[in-house]
């Protein structure tokens, strides 16, 4: 307990100060003390061939640099260049005439040097000089650009964000070559010092939303930020709601399209997931494909997703309600066969349904966690043991299996809304079991009240479904042709609303 307490205070008060003096050895010693016990910290002394009294020291962390860059652009010139005799205050000379690097700056603050080393930059100190250079030759290994597994498309760009924020930033920049595209950086996390870019299109993004984003980001006070999930939980509205009010994407084309709509993107170093905001309910049902494929097909798919969402939350609840309260609503032959199938099943319908839903969720989670090689075993277990055997043994009835299967299948079509769906589904089953269809409908009314009360950075969550303005709803239930969407969504974008000219497409 004591130990933990100590570590915590230690973490919070870690701002150590390095004061650069004129003695190279003293300066280096200060860094050595800070990095004590860390064997990856490399210190390399060098001196010039012609003028041995000009001594330098390079400080960096193993593996973070591109070795050839440091060797050829820093060490080689420092050793071989003919230096003027007077080296005092010559760090400017070094920066301007010796170092062959595009990213180097003079720094007098020791802590800035220290941070640079931690982030993988290289610090250069010089004897008789109380200033140093930070040279950026970051060269660690990155994952290559791949198609994101979670957001695959039928047609459309195949590249996805990677863990490096610099690469991610360039991917967005490549798609929007305009000076209006702004990246504002922030460092988040006391220890992680994670670099975060808030990215927006000037004149298109809404300034009120933008300043709200900065206000919330600046209030974050944590020790580390690992992923978009960390940040979005801090900045989202209605923190207790299961519904997300910030979106995520792993695709630069989606990010660019969002920027063009006036949305704001937050890129976070170290994760391929970017945050998009404001995020509205409708976006759960939109995919990138929708905008790349034929709009009839896209609209059909979108309606399919919405119907599936309704089915996946209501199907088990309605089944339970019908079977335990409203027998008259089931067609006679169906009731006869359901009744026959339930003959001998010892549990009430509610218990049976919840039990099977629970099993289904376990199967889903197992499928996520288990190594790929065991996947086959799981499906055999699920299909045979839980399906056929349970029905034969009269532990559950066949209709419930069908209902749960429909529920599961329709739930998988909109994977992003999974968390609220599980909660809603269970709630509706309980309501249906307690109060029949009345309960189910009370639950749905409560759901709508909750959804209509939510806001994402000041934008009402359900505005696209409740708006009567035709220009707001042409990208909701259906995806209208691109030449229909002449204006940006009013509720998101700022003053500049016109997207395109008047040409209707065709010839």
């Amino acid at each position, binding site marked *: 307990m004591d130990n933990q307490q100590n570590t915590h205070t230690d973490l919070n008060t870690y701002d150590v100060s390095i004061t650069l003096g004129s003695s190279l050895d003293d300066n280096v010693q200060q860094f050595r003390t800070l990095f004590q016990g860390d064997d990856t910290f490399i210190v390399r002394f060098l001196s010039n061939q012609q003028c041995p009294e000009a001594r330098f020291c390079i400080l960096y962390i193993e593996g973070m640099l591109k070795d050839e860059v440091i060797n050829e652009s820093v060490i080689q010139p420092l050793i071989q260049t003919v230096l003027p005799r007077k080296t005092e205050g010559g760090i400017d000379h070094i920066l301007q005439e010796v170092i062959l690097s595009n990213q180097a700056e003079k720094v007098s603050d020791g802590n800035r040097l220290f941070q640079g080393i931690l982030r993988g930059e290289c610090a250069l100190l010089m004897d008789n000089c109380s200033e140093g250079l930070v040279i950026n030759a970051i060269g660690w290994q990155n994952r290559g650009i791949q198609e994101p597994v979670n957001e695959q498309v039928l047609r459309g760009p195949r590249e996805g964000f990677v863990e490096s924020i610099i690469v991610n930033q360039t991917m967005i920049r490549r798609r929007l070559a305009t000076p209006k595209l702004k990246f504002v950086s922030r460092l988040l996390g006391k220890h992680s010092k994670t670099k975060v870019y808030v990215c927006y299109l000037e004149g298109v993004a809404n300034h009120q939303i933008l300043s709200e984003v900065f206000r919330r980001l600046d209030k974050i006070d944590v020790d580390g930020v690992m992923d978009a999930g960390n940040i979005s939980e801090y900045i989202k509205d209605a923190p207790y709601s299961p519904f997300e009010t910030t979106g995520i994407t792993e695709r630069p084309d989606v990010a660019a399209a969002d920027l063009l709509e006036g949305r704001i993107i937050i890129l976070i170093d170290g994760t391929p997931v970017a945050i998009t905001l404001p995020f509205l309910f409708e976006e759960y049902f939109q995919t990138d494909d929708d905008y790349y494929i034929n709009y009839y097909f896209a609209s059909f798919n979108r309606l399919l997703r919405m119907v599936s969402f309704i089915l996946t939350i209501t199907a088990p609840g309605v089944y339970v309600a019908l*079977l335990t309260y409203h*027998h008259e609503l089931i067609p006679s*032959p169906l009731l006869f066969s359901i*009744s*026959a199938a*339930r003959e001998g099943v010892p549990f009430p*319908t509610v218990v049976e349904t919840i039990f099977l839903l629970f099993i289904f969720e376990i199967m889903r989670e197992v499928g996520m966690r288990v190594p790929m090689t065991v996947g086959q075993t799981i499906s055999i277990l699920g299909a045979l043991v839980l399906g056929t055997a349970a029905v034969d043994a009269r532990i559950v009835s066949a209709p419930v299996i069908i209902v749960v299967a429909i529920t599961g299948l329709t739930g998988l079509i909109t994977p992003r809304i999974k968390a609220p769906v599980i909660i809603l589904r269970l709630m509706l089953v309980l309501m249906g*079991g307690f*109060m*029949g269809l009345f309960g189910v409908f009370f639950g749905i009314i409560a759901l709508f009240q909750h959804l209509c009360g939510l806001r994402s950075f000041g934008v009402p969550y359900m505005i696209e479904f409740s708006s009567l303005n035709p220009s707001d709803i042409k990208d909701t239930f259906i995806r209208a042709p691109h030449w229909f969407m002449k204006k940006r969504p009013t509720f998101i974008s700022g003053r500049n609303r016109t997207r395109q000219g008047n040409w209707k497409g065709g010839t």
Partner: protein
Amino acid sequence: MKKVLVCLLILGFIPMIFSGCWNYKEVTQLSLLAGIAIDYTDSGEFLLTFEVADLHEMGEKSQVKSVLVEAKGQTLFEAARNVISKSLPKLYWGHATTVIISQDVASSGRIAEVIDFLCRDAEPRLTMAFIISQTKMAREIFEAQAPASEIRSTEINEILDDAGSQSKIVSTPLIDFIKAFSAKGQSAIATALNVEEKGGEKAIVNSGTAIFKKEKLVGFINPEDTAILNFVLDNIKGGVYVVKTDPENAEKKISLELLKSKTRIKPSYAEGKLSMEILIETSVALNEIGGSVEYEGEEAIRILGQKAEAQLKSQIEDFVRKVQREYGADIFGFGQTVYKNLPQVWREMHDEWDTVFSELEVTANPIIVIKHAGLLRKPIKPGD
């Protein structure tokens, strides 16, 4: 804040715990009633026969069987509740499709009791088929064979569903019966069923229509006359109409398929005398020629149509006269028509409507349009 939350939680749970589940019933706790037959016992009590879907012996098969359960009681409700003592769960009426009433019950004038019981309770549906059995006991219908489905009530409903393509059967759901039963200037009718024995197997057959006068069953009319009744009641949705083209040669017949029919009853009042005109417009298709009837060209077709019109006219007029004479029951709803079209006249006459009805002058004016003659332009004749 916390207190408010706890209070809200408690408030939310109270309705669930205290009022929830009040009507909770698992399907397996119910006996699914398919149909009910109402008879008298020898001692004059009600004898109810319930056809209950039997789901206990179903394994992989999807066939549903039915069992018959009997119960007696002084009133219908008592009889219905007496079933519970027979080790069956409570009967669930929501899926009952058939009520069969024996001749005895129907003609004893206690039909109002039956209707009252069926309408007062929340579970039975008003769409149940309302049937009068021509057998001695109504339950005999449930004892007949049901080739298409294991449940007789379902079988009966399938017969009634076919009414559309038959025209020889009337389908009277409970709600229609009640409307006619309680309407002024109209007598009720109901489907009549019988059981026929063929080679040791009993089968349910359509036996026309049961006719009520006031609350009593007064008689039955056969399926052929039922077709004529359907013409008057504007109930024709399909079926066959057979025309004899030559009075001397009974073999010369043509079959007309009824495509569409519309009937209007036009009352007229002149010089203290009420008369009815039945206007029928029917489109038909020529479907079968029997006994080499000569026809060729539009003119021949028109003559055929005229023959059919003449036959239908005399059939309707004869049938109406028969009903007027034999039963004196206004099953055509002429009184209703007068009430709606000539309210003044109705006000004068409604007290002695029975006498007025039996002396009413009724003329029928059918128009039959033969739309097409199928795929043949001429009848096929034998060559040399």
